[in-house]
């Protein structure tokens, strides 16, 4: 075991870690837009929209992420669209995360006591105002801890985008392993960086939970 190998390639690993975080942030942003839309669709009165939303969630939670990523890559290729690997990666992560995020939002919206919106209706609030001033503020606060958790899961899942060629942390570790013939040091180095990133975000999550007062009792 030669730890100095990790030190020598540290710059390269840090740079790749940056790509990992960036891709994950982009993925969760796309996922939020998709998840919020699907959640709205499921909670709307429209039966067809609700069904479509349910099918989306079922498919993108049921199919493994690797299969989803390769599907996007080859699917669009079949129809002649040359998709840059980055678009396929962020799109795949976003589609997958969107399914989970729509469930998080649905759970948070259901957790807001129904009595509040009933009282608001009785007082004459319009639907839009009930959403804007009562449901959404509380639901978004409740959903922060699960969202941070989802981001951490997405960070780990992003290691799979190495198979479509993105130069993120796992791919960087693989490159170091093959160029230095010291796979143990390479993967321990990459693993330590993943651990460090995850611990940071888990700490941020605990901080956010405390500040928002929505933490689960230990």
């Amino acid at each position, binding site marked *: 075991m030669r730890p100095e190998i990790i030190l020598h390639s540290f710059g390269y690993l840090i740079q790749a870690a940056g790509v990992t975080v960036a891709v994950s942030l982009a993925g969760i942003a796309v996922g939020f837009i998709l998840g919020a839309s699907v959640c709205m669709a499921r909670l709307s009165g429209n039966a067809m929209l609700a069904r479509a939303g349910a099918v989306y969630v*079922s498919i993108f*939670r*049921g*199919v493994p992420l690797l*299969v989803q990523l*390769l*599907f996007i890559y080859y699917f669009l290729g079949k129809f002649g669209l040359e998709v840059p690997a980055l678009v396929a990666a962020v799109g795949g992560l976003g589609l997958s995360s969107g399914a989970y995020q729509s469930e998080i939002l649905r759970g948070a919206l259901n957790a807001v006591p129904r009595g509040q919106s009933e009282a608001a209706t009785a007082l004459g609030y319009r639907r839009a105002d009930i959403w804007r001033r009562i449901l959404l503020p509380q639901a978004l606060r409740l959903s922060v801890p699960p969202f941070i958790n989802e981001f951490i899961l997405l960070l780990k899942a992003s290691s799979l985008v190495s198979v479509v060629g993105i130069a993120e942390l796992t791919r960087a570790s693989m490159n170091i392993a093959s160029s230095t013939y010291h796979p143990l040091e390479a993967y321990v180095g990459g693993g330590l960086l993943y651990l460090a990133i995850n611990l940071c975000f888990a700490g941020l999550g605990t901080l956010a939970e405390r500040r928002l007062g929505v933490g689960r009792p230990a």
Partner: protein
Amino acid sequence: MSFDVLWTYLPSLLSGFAVTILCWGLGAVLGLALGFVIALLDRLRIAPLRWVLRVYVEIIRGTPFLMQLFLLYAGGPSIGLRLSATTAGIVGLGLYSSAYFAEIFRGGFNAVPAGQVEAAMSVGMSPFDILWRIKLPLMLVATVPAIVNMLIILSKETVVLSIITVPELMYEMQTMAAETFTAFEAIFAMAIFYWLLVEVVSRLGRRLEMRVTSFMTRDARPA
């Protein structure tokens, strides 16, 4: 777009399916056993041991599964551990799931009402009897949904094994795709297959939950 190629390659796809189920099954058994042992050891409340267990769980839950596999398969030989791809895959799945199962069992143990354990001790039941006849049945209620959920997650993680060349279903599909230029059909078939697998296991899991909680009244059941 022709799906006949799937029929031609049926033998290798079936073998891939068998390897997938084998890895999933053995990995799950290893993970459940190891996770349960970790949860039991945690209950001993020996501080240094608990610290070691905590570090183990945090490392496994904090790093991607793919990295853990690479570490086992490619990094193993550096410390004298030469595993075949399939063995590395099963061990990887087992270690990965053991961390999550340990947390599930920990929560399960905490969910057992202390009063029942105290009553059992006061009538003179042995610790083993208390574990087997009181704690485990009560724990089942709390842990079965989480265990089923983790088993589903594990089944989806088996596709990652194809990256370290374990000859499971995804790997066989990709081989077929490379030999016959039918990447799209292969991936599409994979997607359908896994979606069906997850749906079936989810439904079976829900029926299992119903059976395990059948002694409870409807309001008391988790959901």
